[in-house]
């Protein structure tokens, strides 16, 4: 029983991390109808920027204050993501208004390559560490409830907390601020939003910036777990079933989807994996999402798709 719950909690924590990446997809899709395949590359790019900036800042400060160096690096990486958002909007999205979904999807694939190339040219292509001072040692919890207790990774726990905090902040941002309201208006109807004077171009920059910041946070958490390296870009492929499961247009969907996929992956790997030779994590998530899709084509929380001739 203890082992089962340990696996379950491990799955939930991993799920929060998936949600974090999935959130980036949802934000951009919701407000511009672009399925942003480049989200994974943005995670990599942001993490690379963060890792190198913090290294340089630490060096410049003489290694005195890790916190200050990380803070500077975070702001620096945020500015880099702002630049990315602006360039993407100015030179790509603005020229592709009213194109089909497939075209926009392909464009983001192109952006993926560009970001991967630039990221590795500017910041280097070795494996870097992000050290934001997260505790790495596991702790035992609930020793009184279960025999032997449950081993929980502190780092995972903090990461999940940060993810939850970010989701809360984003919901507040979307619901309570004027910019958030404008974003929701754009998501509902581009033309109507334009007609009441919402500047579409600026909104898109903001959305891509927010997605960039989310990517930065995801990059820091994933990067401090796995090291900042090229394979970080494939995180996007792990997060895709999450978005599909939760629905492309739903922020809570991304969270619930992430949790379901995280738990499903861990449980399947532990209980079904040994029977078929292991390594099933990667496709199990997709098959799970597929099964859900057969019953709810728009995902768990997605808006219902209505067809008119």
């Amino acid at each position, binding site marked *: 029983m203890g082992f089962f719950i340990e696996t379950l909690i491990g799955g939930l924590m991993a799920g929060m991390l998936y949600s974090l990446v999935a959130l980036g997809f949802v934000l951009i899709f919701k407000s511009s109808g672009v*399925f942003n395949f480049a989200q994974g590359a943005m995670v990599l790019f942001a993490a690379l920027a963060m890792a190198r900036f913090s290294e340089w800042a630490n060096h410049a400060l003489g290694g005195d204050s890790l916190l200050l160096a990380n803070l500077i690096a975070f702001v620096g990486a945020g500015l880099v993501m702002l630049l990315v958002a602006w360039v993407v909007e100015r030179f*790509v999205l603005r*020229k*592709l208004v009213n*194109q*089909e*979904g*497939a*075209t926009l*999807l*392909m*464009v983001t*694939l*192109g*952006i*993926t*390559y*560009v*970001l*991967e*190339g*630039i990221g*590795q*040219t500017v910041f280097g*292509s070795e494996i870097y560490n992000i050290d934001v001072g997260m505790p790495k040692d596991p702790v035992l919890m609930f020793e009184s409830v279960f025999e032997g207790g449950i081993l929980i990774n502190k780092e995972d726990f903090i990461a999940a907390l940060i993810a939850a905090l970010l989701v809360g902040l984003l919901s507040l941002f979307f619901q309570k601020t004027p910019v958030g309201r404008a974003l929701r208006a754009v998501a509902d109807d581009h033309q109507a939003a334009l007609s009441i004077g919402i500047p579409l171009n600026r909104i898109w920059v903001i959305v891509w910036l927010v997605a960039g910041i989310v990517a930065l946070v995801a990059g820091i958490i994933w990067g401090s777990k796995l090291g900042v390296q090229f394979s970080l870009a494939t995180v996007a*492929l792990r997060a*895709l*079933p999450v*978005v*599909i499961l939760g629905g*492309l247009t739903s922020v809570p969907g991304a969270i619930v989807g992430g949790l379901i996929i995280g738990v499903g992956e861990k449980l399947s790997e532990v209980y079904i994996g040994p029977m*078929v*030779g*292991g*390594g*099933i994590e*990667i*496709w199990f998530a*997709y*098959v799970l*999402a*597929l099964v859900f*899709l*057969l019953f709810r*084509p*728009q*995902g768990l929380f997605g808006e219902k798709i209505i*067809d*008119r*001739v």
Partner: protein
Amino acid sequence: MLYRENGQFKTSYAADQQVFTIAQDKWFVLGVIAFAFIGVPMLVDEYMFRAILIPFLILSLAALGVNLLVGYCGQITLGAGAFMAIGAYAAYNFFVRIEGMPVVLAMLLGGGVSAAMGVLFGIPSLRVRGLYLAVATLAAQFFCDWAFLRISWFTNDSSSGSVSVSNLKMFGWTIDSPVDKYLFCLGVMVVFAVLAKNLTRATVGRQWMAIRDMDVAAEVIGIRPMYSKLSAFAVSSFFVGVAGAMWGFIHLGSWEPAAFSVDRSFQLLFMVIIGGLGSILGSFFGAAFIVVLPIFLNQFLPALGDLVGISISTAAVSHAELIIFGSLIVFFLIVEPHGLARLWSIAKEKLRLWPFPH
């Protein structure tokens, strides 16, 4: 002046409905094919065959298959690499396990297995569409990556996980020199291109296009969406599967599942989009572009670096390749979302009027 259809009168419906209604088109295409069969083997050296022509021919066959599904039937797929893998491994198993199996039959059977799997993975298309479907097809991709890596039966229990074929023979003709391989690929490609062209002109192709343009409306006028969508998946997977078998048997010789990774799927989709959705000719343009560009950049960038006096490292070249490749894709999609095939047809239109402006 030369390209004008004046005076070419049609006296029967059959003549009016032929593939190339303009005589110049017909002679041009026949000339290109004849040149490819006779002229190219005499002119081109071995490196060109190995590095450019054979990959181009095989990948254009795969792109043709993807174009039938994505361009004609409107079902986005990101799992084309998986169907190449299924074709390759199925053909391998037929070839190795059955004594005296002819190569061509093994490849076609591989394509058949791929078609069957295509129908299976196409079933979600009846419920979901667009981006959701694209992600559903990724399921096929990751499942196949895993299956061919972990289930040793598929690889004939080879210890290293990679499989290889040799001694390819067809009617007493041993296919081993690059020229032989090239001619074999070219032959297969011509047959399949004619097949694809005619499929898209026939009932089934028209149904695909109706489904692509609006599936609810197509259903209302009496087109069965299940039959049309699944037949598109089957035919497309067959093409892609045969291409996969050829990629393994003829181009690589020995291969691992990594040869058909998700990158291959993206690459095939790029070919179709850059070449032109819903255009047979576009598949060839796209394949040529994607095959030649990396080789060109690889040769050109270091040379350019030498010219300005900077030596560019291999890593920098590969990064620059990514950047240029990505920006070219973005550039193409912005400037000509309908692909290279559209540029070709614009050129033809202009040529028709030339030298008069109107």
